[in-house]
């Protein structure tokens, strides 16, 4: 069994009866080529879908998983397949900014000088009370990400 099949098995895809309710209720699939039914079925058959860009069109709305009559966790299957795709360097490189932000500031969306100004005008602390303003805590967070190898994984695979 290859890694793609393993992911499919862990997400109960073997229970899928190909009814297509997942695809029918998919808001992203209405506007893109994402076909959840086909994607998880291909994975179940061991077809390598980790280079399929449709993996990244899922908004993780969970309509599909919620409506599946067989209890297949389609969204978690897609998330796990994304994890696999990342390890093979297949992911939207535009996400690298958010990933670097997470490592450097603890936030996916960091504070901008404009919003800092708005914060102080409306009576909030100019800088929010979080890890971004606490170098010691931030270094601990970075250490955690170093242990899980997050940045290395994404940067290495992205090259």
């Amino acid at each position: 069994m290859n890694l793609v099949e393993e992911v499919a098995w862990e997400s109960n895809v073997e229970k899928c009866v190909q009814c297509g309710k997942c695809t029918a209720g998919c808001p992203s699939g209405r506007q893109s080529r994402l076909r959840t039914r086909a994607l998880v079925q291909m994975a179940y058959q061991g077809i390598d879908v980790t280079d399929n860009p449709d993996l990244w069109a899922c908004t993780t709305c969970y309509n599909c998983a919620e409506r599946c009559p067989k209890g297949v966790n389609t969204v978690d299957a897609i998330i796990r397949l994304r994890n696999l795709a990342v390890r093979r360097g297949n992911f939207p490189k535009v996400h690298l900014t958010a990933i670097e932000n997470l490592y450097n500031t603890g936030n996916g969306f960091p504070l901008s000088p404009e919003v800092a100004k708005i914060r102080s005008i409306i009576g909030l602390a100019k800088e929010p009370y979080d890890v971004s303003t606490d170098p010691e805590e931030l270094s601990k967070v970075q250490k955690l990400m170093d242990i899980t190898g997050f940045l290395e994984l994404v940067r290495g695979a992205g090259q």
Partner: protein
Amino acid sequence: MSTVNTASGSVKMRFSLFPGCIAKNMYASIEKSTRFVFDHLGIELVDHRYTCCPAPGVFRGYDIDTWLTLGARNLSQAEADHLDVLTICNGCYGSLFGSNHILQEDPKKREEINEILGKVGKRYDGTIQVLHFADVLSQLHDKIIENKVYDLGLRLAVHYGCHYLRPSHHHESINVENPHIVEDIITLVGCEPVEFKNRLSCCGAGGGVWSGNEAVGLDVLEEKLGFMEEGEPDAILNICPFCHLQFDQGQKKIQKFQIPVLHLNQVLGLAFGQRPKKLAIHTHLVSTREIERKVKKLKKKRKE
């Protein structure tokens, strides 16, 4: 426990506030109104040194273990103070409820993550709960009425957002196929929910689609905005800063709609008598001038 006994013998609710990246760093108006509203409701919000939740679609999509580790670190901060976590964003709720669920139900995984947390002197035992602010507000109808200064009279297109409703095992207390918890709250302050097609659909921002597949996300949004517009709302009402961002920035990008966007705490802040400028709703991209004008009129009428 998220309550403390006050000197007068009454019980006061206390939570660790998890504002999330967007309410802190992009739409500070939402953090402001949250603090204003919860202060009026007599609920104490405690701050902790949090990171991003981290986002349930994009960061979890990259590495589940990093997502779980940072989530556990966040939860450990509140647990150290014996506080439940209060989220004001569906993404944060979905992420932290999800990671908490795994850490509580899977002791083996919890220990695995604790081994990592231990390297920076932290630990999470899974003793606290993650709450969504709309659920807390739904328990406080009397207090909301008590604090109401104005019946706002706004027609609102209510957007629930996906990670509040689904997966439904995150929310066994509500009917996820036909929820009315938010409509019930806005009705208390004189607002009217408008009807529109496919009301529980996605805003198109989640899962990394906002940045990674913008055109698809905007098409999802445009369809929803079209349905909302048919209901002729004064504003779109959301319970999630990320949906809020998608509705506010997305309308600027699509250039077809001009519907003001308000987070539930902003609506409550206005109903509790705060001036729109003080809540900074004018910092949104889609003009809120009509809303400000309506609130000003109510103020004038009250003085007469």
